[in-house]
C-alpha cells in the first residue's frame, strides 16, 4: 500500500518528534539531568515511523533498549516518557523502569526490553494470544542485528512460523552490536535471508526511507492480520550516536567519522522533507514551523517531568506482586 499525502505529513511529524525527543535527552544527559542509561534512536526514525503507521491502537509492539522511537511511534505520550526518564512517580512506570522499560499495555506497548533478544519470545506469545483469542491483532517485534545472533531469535521465529502467528519481526540492522560490526558478528550481509530457515518471507529494505519501510511493513502486517503468518523484515539503518550516551567518543572508537558522516547524509527526515517540498505537500516554512511546534511540546514534557515528584521511599515495596 502506498502512502497518501496526509500519511507523509504524519510520518514527518512522528520522525521529527522522535528526533527532537532524543536530542533533548542527549542534552539533558550531558548536563547530568537524566540518570541511568540513554540509548538514542537518532538516525533510525524511519523504521519506527514506517512500521507503526501500519498498526492499530490494539496491536502490540515489543521494543528494545533503544526503544524511545518505537514507543513514541506507537502512541506513547512524551510527558509520561520524559517523567519516566527523570525517575519521577508520574512516569509510565512510576519511575521504576526508566529508559529501557517504558511500557503501556493499554496501547499495546509490551515494553522496551533491556535484554538483547529478550522481547522476541514475548512478541511470539502476544501473537499466540491474539490467535487463541481469535482477534486480528498483529504484533511488531523490534530487535537489532546483534540480537539476530541470540538463541531467542531462532527459537522465536521457529515457534512463530510453526504456528503461523501474526507477528512481524523487524530487524533494525544498524550495522553494529554495541561496538562489534556486523562483519565481525555474522557471516551474512542480509539478516532477512535467515527467513528461509523458517519458511517465511524475508525482506530487506532501506531503513532510512520511510516509504520503503511503510510499504514493506504494510504487506507484512496485512499478511499477519489475515492469518498467513510471520514475516522477517530487515531495515538497514544507522545510529548517529554511540551505543548509549556514555559511549566513549560517541562510537568513534569503533567507527570512522567518514562512515558516520556518510550515513548522516542519508538522514531519513531530510530525505522525506525533500519529497514533501518537491511534491508541494509542505513548504519549507511550514516544515520549520513543525520543528518549532514540536520543540515547544518537548519543552512542555520536560517541564512536566521537572515539576513531578520523585517516588516516595515506601514506593520501593509497591508492585513487586499483584496484590
Amino acid at each position, binding site marked *: 500500500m502506498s502512502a497518501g499525502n496526509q500519511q507523509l505529513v504524519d510520518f514527518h511529524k512522528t520522525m521529527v518528534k522522535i528526533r527532537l525527543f532524543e536530542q533533548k535527552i542527549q542534552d539533558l544527559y550531558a548536563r547530568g539531568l537524566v540518570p541511568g542509561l540513554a540509548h538514542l534512536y537518532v538516525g533510525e526514525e524511519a523504521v519506527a515511523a514506517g512500521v507503526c503507521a501500519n498498526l492499530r491502537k490494539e496491536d502490540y509492539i515489543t521494543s528494545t533498549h533503544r526503544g524511545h522511537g518505537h514507543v513514541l511511534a506507537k502512541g506513547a505520550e512524551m510527558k509520561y516518557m520524559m517523567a519516566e526518564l527523570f525517575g519521577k512517580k508520574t512516569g*509510565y512506570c512510576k519511575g521504576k523502569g526508566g529508559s529501557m522499560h517504558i511500557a503501556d499495555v493499554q496501547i499495546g506497548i509490551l515494553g522496551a526490553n533491556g535484554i538483547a533478544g529478550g522481547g522476541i519470545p514475548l512478541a511470539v*506469545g502476544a501473537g499466540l494470544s491474539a490467535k487463541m483469542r481469535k482477534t486480528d491483532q498483529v504484533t511488531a517485534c523490534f530487535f537489532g542485528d546483534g540480537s539476530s545472533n541470540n538463541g531467542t531469535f531462532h527459537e*522465536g521465529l521457529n515457534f512463530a512460523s510453526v504456528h503461523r502467528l501474526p507477528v512481524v519481526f523487524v530487524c533494525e540492522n544498524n550495522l553494529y552490536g554495541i561496538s562489534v560490526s556486523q562483519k565481525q558478528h555474522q557471516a551474512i550481509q542480509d539478516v532477512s535471508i535467515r527467513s528461509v530457515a523458517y519458511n517465511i518471507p524475508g525482506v530487506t529494505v532501506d531503513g532510512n526511507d520511510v516509504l520503503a519501510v511503510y510499504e514493506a511493513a504494510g504487506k507484512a502486517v496485512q499478511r499477519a492480520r489475515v492469518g498467513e503468518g510471520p514475516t522477517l523484515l530487515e531495515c538497514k539503518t544507522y545510529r548517529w550516536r554511540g551505543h548509549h550516551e556514555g559511549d566513549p567518543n560517541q562510537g568513534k572508537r569503533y567507527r570512522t567519522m567518514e562512515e558516520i558522516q556518510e550515513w548522516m547524509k542519508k538522514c531519513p527526515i531530510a530525505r522525506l522533507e525533500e519529497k514533501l517540498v518537491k511534491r508541494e505537500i509542505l513548504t519549507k516554512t511550514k516544515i520549520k514551523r513543525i520543528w518549532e511546534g514540536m520543540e515547544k511540546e518537548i519543552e512542555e514534557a520536560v517541564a512536566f517531568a521537572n515539576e513531578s515528584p520523585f517516588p516516595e521511599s515506601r514506593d520501593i515495596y509497591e508492585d513487586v506482586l499483584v496484590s
Partner: protein
Amino acid sequence: MREITYAQAINEALAYNLEKDPTVFLMGEDIGKYGGIFQVTAGLLDKFGPERIIDTPISEAAFTGAAVGAAMTGMRPIVEIMFIDFTTACMDMIVNQMAKIHYMFGGRGRVPMVLRTNIGAGRGAAAQHSQSFHAFFMHIPGLIVVAPSSPYDAKGLMNTAIRDDNPVVFVEHKKLYAVKGEVPEEPYTLPLGKAEIKREGKDITLVATHEMVNRSLRVAEEMAREGVEVEVVDPRTLRPLDQETILESVKKTGRLIVADEGPVTCGVTAEISARVAEQAIEYLEAPILRVGSPDTPVPFSPPLEKIYIPDEDDVRESIRKMQAYL
C-alpha cells in the same frame, strides 16, 4: 476418601481450570500425546485439543517467553519445563521477564502464569536431570514459589496458583509423582504463602519441604516411641515464606532442624535458618541443624546417588544430635 497420586492430583487441577476458563492453556515439551514425561498432562490433549495443549519445539526460551507475552495480553498460560535443570535454558525469560514485568512497568503489566517443573534425584539420571535448585527462584522478587509435598496439597495449591495474577513457579517432586493420598474429587483451593503444621510436637521444630516432609514424618513417628516429640512444619510456599508459623513453632520448641533436598549452601535451609537466627535466637536452646544434599553435582552411580540424597537416616541423625540439647 478416594486416593489418587500426586501426578493425578495436579492433572485434575489442570483439567478443572482448562474446563472452566478458556484463557487457560498448556505448553511444554511432550505434554500432548506423550502425556508429559511424568504423565502429569496425560489425557488432556484428547479432552482439550492441540490448540490448548501445545507440544512445543525444544525451545524453553521461546515457549516460556511466549507464555509471558500471552499472559500479558489476556491469557493464563501454564508451561511445563521437563526438569528444573532445563530452566537454565530459559533463565532470562523467568528472571528478567516473567518476574520483573509487573514491577519494572510500575504495575502496568501482569503476568498471570504458572511454570511447572520438578526437582529430585533418585532415578539414576545424573547431574543434569536430578537437581534441586528451586532456591534459585526464592532469590527472585516478583515470583511466587510453591512446593507441594502431598497429592492433597498439590491439587489445592495448583488451583490457587492458576487463579493468581502473579507468575508462579510450581516446583513438583519426581519421587512424589507416584505417591498416593486422599484427595477430594471436588475442586478446592489452598492459600499461597501459608505453611501447614503436618505433625505437632513440643521438643523440636523440623521445617521440611517436598519429599523431606514425608521422610521427616516417618522419622518423627519413630522418635515419638522414644519420647521425643518432633513438630513437622511444611512451608508449602517458599516465596513468600510463612515465617510467622515457623517462628511460632520455634518459640514453642526452642530447637530447629531444616530439611530440604537442595544443596545447603545458599539454599532453602540457609534462608530459613537465617531468619530464625535473626528473629528468634533468644528462644533457641540448641544450634540450628540443616539436612540437605552435599555440595557436589548429583552423581550417577547408585551407591553414590544414595549417599547424595538426604533421607530418613540423615533426618534421624540430626535429631540424635539435637537430643544432646533436650
